[in-house]
């Protein structure tokens, strides 16, 4: 049996289906975010000046299209999984015992909170029709 020695990523977990699934999903969500986040930064920080993007701009232009709401919500979901599973690995590397368990649950609670408020604003922000 050859060990998969990573110079980079985490060694692929063995014998635990849940950890293996997370390992794969971490990479898949990373590939999705490669496209979504770089597109997001390119449009909102390079093509448009962020200084102009006040609340009215978002309601009138950015989220006047269902496509961008779906885009941003998909990015939110992938980011929440990827960022919080990544932080779970950091916590797992740096702590143990009760501290690890407590911090891991705190991470999950924060993730759920952010998913809820992020989803609320994507779904409920009124769509302002730009004045002609």
């Amino acid at each position, binding site marked *: 049996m050859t060990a*998969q*020695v*990573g*110079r*980079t*990523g985490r060694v*692929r977990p063995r014998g635990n289906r849940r950890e293996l699934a997370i390992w794969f999903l971490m*990479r898949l969500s*990373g*590939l999705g*975010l*490669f496209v979504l*986040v*770089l597109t997001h*930064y390119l449009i909102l*920080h*390079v093509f448009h*000046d*962020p*200084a102009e*993007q*006040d*609340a*009215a701009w*978002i*309601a009138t232009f950015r989220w006047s299209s269902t496509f961008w709401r779906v885009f941003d919500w998909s990015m*939110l979901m992938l*980011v929440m999984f990827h*960022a*919080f599973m*990544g*932080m779970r690995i*950091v916590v797992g590397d740096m702590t143990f015992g009760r501290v690890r368990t407590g911090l891991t649950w705190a991470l999950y609670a*924060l993730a759920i909170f*952010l998913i809820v*408020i*992020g989803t*609320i*604003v994507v779904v*409920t*922000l009124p769509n302002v029709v730009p004045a002609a």
Partner: protein
Amino acid sequence: MLVRYRGGEGMLAWAFHRISGVAIWLFVILHVIDIFLVGAAPDVYDSLLGIYATPPGIVMEWLLGAAVLYHALNGLRIVIIDFWPRLTRYHRQLWYLVWIGFVVVGVPVTVVIFGQFARSMGWAT
């Protein structure tokens, strides 16, 4: 300290990946909350935007872009090596490729971001 540690490129690639990852995680928490405020308290969001548009805010925006770009490119390298383990042999070369991509994309983006900033401050037209 990082440079003297014996891990070489692989270890530096890992350290930068982790540092950029934690930094992006912190920003994402802030960013989900500020976008929530667009609906809940638009005035608060607008005043926050005013802080983002100050010189320290622009530097943070630029650093965020750098962290995202490194994390994205090095993440792609991790995926490539994990899915095609034979390429582990070339992990060092792939890391140099990450830096080439980082500079090629990063320099024009830097010019645009600081150009926008100079215009918004009235230093340039």
